[in-house]
């Protein structure tokens, strides 16, 4: 039996709310799966010898588009399937390697409704490994303003991320 779907509305969230932590033990398979899923064939994401001796890193590491996929998954785990990404920005400060336990955390910075009636949450996100922040991320994600609302139906002038 699957869990019932819950779609979080803007009425349920407030600035300062924290998102539940997502922790994940990264393996070489995690890195390679992510690289292949994003069609990124560059060797630093699957060839340790290249990563160490050419790039000067300690191992292969998660690629940028796969980090985007992790952030999206983290956000929509929280919002439910009506959550629709409008904008995401991330800055990589370091890399995520096999053997790391990565942790995603987030804080709602603002909740707003734009002039088209679309509800938005601005969320500050961090990807950390131990005490080290690996990636900082800010995301703007649309949430329904009521149970009947659905951000995925928005287009044209009604979608202004």
């Amino acid at each position, binding site marked *: 039996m699957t869990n019932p779907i819950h779609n979080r509305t803007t009425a349920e969230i407030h600035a300062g709310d924290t998102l539940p932590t997502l922790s*994940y033990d990264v393996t070489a398979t995690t890195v390679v799966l*992510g690289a292949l*899923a*994003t069609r990124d064939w560059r060797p630093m994401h699957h060839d340790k010898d290249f990563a160490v001796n050419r*790039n*000067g890193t300690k191992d292969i590491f998660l690629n940028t588009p*796969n980090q985007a996929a992790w952030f*999206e998954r983290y956000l929509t785990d929280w919002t439910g*399937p009506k959550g629709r990404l409008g904008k995401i920005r*991330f800055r990589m400060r370091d890399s995520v390697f096999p053997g790391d336990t990565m942790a995603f955390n987030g804080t709602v910075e603002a909740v707003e409704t734009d002039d088209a009636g679309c509800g938005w949450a601005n969320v500050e996100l961090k990807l950390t490994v131990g005490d080290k922040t690996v990636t900082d991320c800010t995301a703007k994600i649309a949430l329904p303003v009521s149970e009947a609302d659905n951000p995925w139906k928005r287009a044209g002038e009604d979608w202004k991320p």
Partner: protein
Amino acid sequence: MSDEIPAEVEGWIGEERYAEKTEFPIEMGYVYTSCASVENGNPLFWDEKVAQELAGGPIAPPSMISAWFRPHHWAPGRTKQAQPLQVHFDLKEKLDLPEAVMTDNTITFGVPVRPGDTLETCQILRSISPPKTTKLGTGRFWEIDVVYTNQRGEHVGTESYTGFGYKRGA
């Protein structure tokens, strides 16, 4: 390294380059592979009924946007390996900076990408920094926009990348 940027490279700033179409129509196989790689159980991507109800049919996760334009690693008749984000590799070559990493990435999302869509893109170099030294080495930062549209001309998204091309320290 010299402070001078070659005139040819300066001329790329603001220019739409490398207009291209996806090598294959959008398909759900890659959507499932992407979701599996990050253990994303969002029913919007796995359950046709939910997809129909919420989005009028199956869609791809917005974060997959750049994946659709990464060329096959090999294709018949291709004599040189095709590179995604070719402007980035052009900069590495012309500025003689053999190594590079991406430091910032901003993506703005438009209409959803659906199976069967064929997308178009172009790359626009926005800026190149003066020489900088980081823990990786000495080189330059650059900003590149990648703009995506679908077969109806609708804006699908824009990615803005900041890259750092460098030579490793001695």
